[in-house]
């Protein structure tokens, strides 16, 4: 839509009615639900001077949480991209007993209260839990370490990748693979040169969603993380801690950093996705 038609929608007769109403409603809704609360974060943190702000957000204990939060989230999203793709592949391409059930199970991390997931994971991975007791003798500690954080973030991110990749996979003609095979391509070459480029935009969307969710995740992580300062504390926990100490301004300062950082990363992933969509000829 050009600038002129944006502000003069009446100049053109539209097939779809209600443009003004829809646009107005969208803007009001977005402002009320998203923009105003977010800008409040910025306004509140603006009561700090630059040096005070910097001191709060660059404290060693806070910086350690950024590293864990963003690092573990990226890693979890990457793991989910790989295994989510495999899960989606299995669900689309094969028929097996219990397929419907597994398909439904994928959505469970969406529905489960995060605290429940956190407690369940902690119980499993703690030194005396079912899985933890098996891993402990091998020298692998999961609960109360950064690894535990990763496990929790992987758990909550699974559905995002599966649900974004699945419809694209369903639309993918098997003829493409047959054509590639008749041209002499091996399984791996077919995946690498035909399937992956076509799936990449959807895969990146799933990755971005899983990442965004992981960065903001709180409930499921704090139980399994153990919250040891400098080791297994996540940024949302720092914010909560500051709030509990009535340090509202400090909490919003950290929140601003998180917000900006998340926004930049999502923007980057979106650009990457637009680029790959263009390369795969999605834009007709």
């Amino acid at each position, binding site marked *: 839509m050009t600038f002129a038609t944006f502000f003069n929608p009446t100049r053109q007769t539209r097939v779809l009615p209600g443009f003004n109403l829809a646009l107005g409603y969208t803007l009001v809704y977005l402002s009320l639900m998203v923009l105003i609360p977010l800008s409040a974060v910025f306004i509140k943190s603006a009561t700090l001077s630059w040096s005070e702000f910097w001191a709060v957000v660059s404290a060693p204990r806070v910086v350690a949480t950024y590293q864990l939060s963003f690092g573990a989230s990226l890693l979890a999203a990457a793991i989910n991209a790989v295994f989510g793709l495999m899960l989606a592949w299995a669900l689309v391409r094969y028929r097996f007993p219990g397929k419907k059930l597994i398909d439904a199970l994928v959505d469970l991390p969406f529905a489960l209260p995060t605290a429940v997931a956190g407690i369940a994971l902690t119980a499993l991975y703690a030194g005396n839990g079912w899985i933890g007791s098996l891993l402990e003798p091998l020298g692998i500690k999961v609960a109360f370490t950064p690894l535990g954080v990763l496990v929790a973030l992987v758990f909550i991110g699974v559905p995002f990748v599966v649900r974004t990749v699945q419809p694209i996979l369903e639309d993918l*003609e098997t*003829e*493409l693979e*047959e*054509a*590639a*095979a*008749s*041209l*002499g*391509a*091996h399984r791996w*070459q077919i995946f690498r*040169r*035909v399937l992956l*480029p*076509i799936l990449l935009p959807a895969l990146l969307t799933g990755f971005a969603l899983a990442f965004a969710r992981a960065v903001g995740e709180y409930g499921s992580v704090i139980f399994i993380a153990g919250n040891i300062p400098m080791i297994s504390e996540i940024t949302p926990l720092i914010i909560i801690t500051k709030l509990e100490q009535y340090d509202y301004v400090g909490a919003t300062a950290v929140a601003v950093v998180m917000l900006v950082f998340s926004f930049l990363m999502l923007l980057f992933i979106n650009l990457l996705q637009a680029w790959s969509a263009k*390369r*795969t*000829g999605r834009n*007709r």
Partner: protein
Amino acid sequence: MSIQVEHIHKTFGQFVALDQVSVNFPDGALTALLGPSGCGKTTLLRVIAGLETADSGRVILDGEDASSTHVRQRQVGFVFQHYALFRHLTVFENVAFGLRVRPRRTRPKEAEIRLRVHRLLDLVQLDPLANRFPTQLSGGQRQRVALARALAVEPKVLLLDEPFGALDAQVRKELRRWLRRLHDELHITSLFVTHDQEEALEVADRVVLMHRGRVEQVGTPTEVYEHPASPFVYGFLGAVNTFHGRIDGTHLRVGEATLPHDGDAIHQGADAVGFTRPHELEIVTDLATPHGIEVILDRILTFGASARVELDSLPDADGRGEPTHYEVILPREKVDALGLVEGQRVRLVPSRIHVFPNQTA
């Protein structure tokens, strides 16, 4: 390279797609696999390509049993009805795909790939569009890219699955001629699947007619059109008039009428069906003629070079209840010379009639 299939049997669940099919496809010929949908022609093509595995039987490529060879190693070029182009690759890269996926030892140098792809794109007259994406091409262009892509790997045989099925009539006709010319240039053994009898008869050197998972007839277009081996082939290849009756001497008796026929293998008194093409029927206005079937002239359609006359049998003429519908094609002058009018009673005398025993009776 010649292709032979021997006793190929293939079922999908309860459905028998191919029932002990054996055919020879000679070296260098362009053969059409023709039949109605569901007759097994596409399955046969896919079995030959290695995209489908037969339950039993052998596929012999160039004298060697290739039944267990993977599609990757069969060196067949396959063209799909819906093109199956890689939409994330340009036209150039689509054609180059088969060369790029080769193992390093046999992969041509980049310059060589360029040369070969451009030569192929020239061949399909698409070189100016080398940098376009498939979505920016028309259907006919896409199918030509698909063909160039299949030819890039220098296949020993070219298999085309309803290659023109998704195109509109005009483009279809043009591509048909073009495929024929291309084949005359390359002389690569080619098989194409079609349900369009006109397409098969026009383009192919040989036609393999299939029906219900079996081969009904194999021959040149003229052979199968002039001498259909079965009632099915007669009905499938072009318009046909049928006469249901009983063998009586050298005649086919339809109700009261008698039609002379030259058949011999059918024993006396047997139920039989006679087939004639619309141009093999003569209209006789003299109702006293000893032979021929009396009919009512329904409609005369005079457009184009020849006239089409539609006629109906007299009510209950052959004891089958409903009136039978006939179609005659004759020169326009003949219509005027005979002074035909709609509603008139005339006799139909076949100049040629082919009689088959009636299996349904």
